[in-house]
């Protein structure tokens, strides 16, 4: 019965709007893919002509990683409407399982694209399993309690990474130890050494893989948003009790969003892990989860292309202003607070919008105004 009602597209005002405006999806998809491809071309051109310095070129893969992390977190925060503060945990699971897989595969074969794809898939699977285990117990919790539990799980995952030891023995077999070092393995054959993290990883991540990952993530999230399941998830977000009363399985749909988001974060984590020859578990702490959440909120909760732009700009800017080392993070903090106040405070927002309308030459198509309106409405 629930399915029939869903097919009739009659629950949730937003679900209805999206369904009736079938081209809403096409618009969002073309903007998102367009931004990804234009961004890719611009950055590649910049790198080829030498306009973009060496330091910034090193940020290309992390940019892609953060873009896909932001898009995948948007599935939980924007579409499912749950606040998650542990996204870096899934990233960590993906990164470390991907690294272990890569080292095992490289011991047996040398075809890098296959190694990359298999590692990413493995990272995604492990992160999905982690998301499933975490998701089952916690999705009964509400709001801020769910946020604090995801925070706790993120920290637990990071803590476990601190006591994991992986290595290859002389036959190329995987050895594993928990809470103590593995005896009899040379340094070069150690894969993960507790708090020191992963060492000796062969860095096979490239910008092209990053673009593919971003496109894949956007594809999955956009299609999910516009599927029957996605509309069910949004209906639950908009009114849990109403959705429950027409027979939607709240836990199932929430879990679905959570697991898909975790799997995508795992893939992104894997790309991140294979981009550095050494990687410490400390990288995946609470601050990283918060950073991804900032991308989502500044890009617009539920807005896919907005968070692509936010993730890119907010990764490039701190890097580009590295010469002002001491002041850049301070400025970042102030800008963050100001942007939040300007976009969410009704009085200040009205004033900013009025000024913007006066100076904006394209009144209807201006990129800034509708975006702000949307974020404000969704937060309410």
């Amino acid at each position, binding site marked *: 019965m629930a399915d029939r009602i869903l097919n009739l597209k009659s629950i949730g005002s937003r679900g209805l709007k999206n369904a009736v405006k079938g081209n809403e999806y096409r618009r969002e998809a073309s903007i998102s893919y367009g931004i990804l491809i234009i961004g890719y071309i611009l950055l590649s051109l910049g790198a080829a002509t030498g306009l973009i310095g060496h330091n910034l070129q090193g940020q290309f893969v992390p940019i892609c990683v953060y873009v896909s992390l932001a898009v995948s977190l948007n599935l939980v*925060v924007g579409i499912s409407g749950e*606040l998650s503060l542990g996204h870096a945990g899934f990233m960590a699971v993906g990164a470390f399982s991907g690294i272990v897989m890569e080292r095992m595969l490289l011991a047996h074969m040398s075809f890098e694209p296959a190694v990359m794809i298999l590692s990413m898939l493995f990272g995604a699977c492990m992160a999905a399993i982690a998301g499933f285990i975490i998701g089952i*117990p*916690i999705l*009964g*919790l*509400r*709001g*801020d*309690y769910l*946020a*604090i*539990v995801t*925070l*706790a*799980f993120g*920290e*637990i995952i990071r*803590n*476990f990474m*601190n*006591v994991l030891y992986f290595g290859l023995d002389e036959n190329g077999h995987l050895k594993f130890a928990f*809470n103590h070092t593995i005896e009899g393995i040379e340094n070069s054959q150690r894969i993960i050494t*507790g*708090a020191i993290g992963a060492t000796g990883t062969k860095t096979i991540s490239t910008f092209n893989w990053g673009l593919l990952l971003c496109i894949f993530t956007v594809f999955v999230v956009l299609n999910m948003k516009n599927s029957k399941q996605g509309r069910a998830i949004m209906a639950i977000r908009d009114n849990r*009790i109403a959705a429950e009363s027409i027979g939607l399985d709240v836990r199932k749909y929430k879990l679905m969003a959570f697991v898909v988001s975790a799997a995508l974060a795992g893939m992104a984590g894997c790309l991140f892990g294979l981009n550095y020859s050494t990687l410490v578990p400390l990288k995946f702490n*609470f601050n990283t989860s*918060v950073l991804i*959440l*900032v991308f989502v*909120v*500044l890009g617009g*909760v539920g807005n896919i292309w907005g968070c692509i732009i936010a993730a890119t700009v907010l990764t490039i800017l701190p890097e580009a202003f590295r010469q002002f080392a*001491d*002041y850049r*993070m*301070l400025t*970042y*903090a*102030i800008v*963050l*607070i100001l942007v*939040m*106040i300007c*976009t*969410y*405070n*009704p009085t*200040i927002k009205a004033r900013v919008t009025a000024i913007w309308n006066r100076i904006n030459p394209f009144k209807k198509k201006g990129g800034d105004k509708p975006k702000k309106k949307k974020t404000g409405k969704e*937060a*309410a």
Partner: protein
Amino acid sequence: MNFLTNIISGLSLGSVYAIIALGYTMVYGISKMLNFAHGDVIMIGAYMSFVMTQYIGANGWIALLVAMAVCTLLGITIERLAYRPLRGTGSLAVLITAIGVSYFLQNMALLIWGANPKMFTSLFKGMSPVHAAGGKLTITPESILTIAANIVIMIALTLFVSKTKAGKAMRAVSEDNGAAQLMGINVNQSISLTFAIGSGLAAVAGVLMCSAYPILMPTTGAMPGIKAFTAAVFGGIGSIPGAMIGGLILGLIEIFSRAYISTELSDAIVFACLIIVLLVKPTGLLGKKISEKV
């Protein structure tokens, strides 16, 4: 004796968590926001006390008072400038702003005091440790005074909230913001007062914590902040006795898992206990049940 020593250090650490958790729990109770900048207010408090004793040469207790005054002002300012414009706009916006404030305070401290860790001189320097059980058990003055401070603060705060006019106003605002306003309660003042008390206590907690663990860095407050927040949720966020119980239990769990299970995994065990408690009692040990309206 080892066991007793662990209990005492657990209670002492737990008392620090409890005092920090009070700030979280009161702020959450009154304005329903997760104030992630609270941990950094602790750090600022500890730095202020450090500056007073090291650079100016003040007495430790005067330094503590100055730190409390500065943090109280800081708390009121943060609330006025960053949180008040966003009141009533949903938890996500305020959460991100709180994170922005936290970044701001950390980077401010980094600019002023640098990234190098500072050695904090204990507030209780010169007091001799207490020997009990025929000299087998040594209790540091830090532990005794931290536990004592926790008890005093807890009693004072409970009395304040239940007996005084301002305290009752605070409870009324946290119960129903709009109705409280209709009854002639100044909501803004009540919320400012809550932030002032919470931040002042954060300064006390910072000084006590750095007396026991004397390394001071711009990120010193972050992890205790998260743990104290966990303690507040553990005990039931919004409840003052809950913060105390949550803090003490968390401190004991942390010290015992460090002593008997694994140092690296102690944080994981603390957070796992939180999750178990929330699964059994979704609003924490002493939290109020939320009824759902259709």
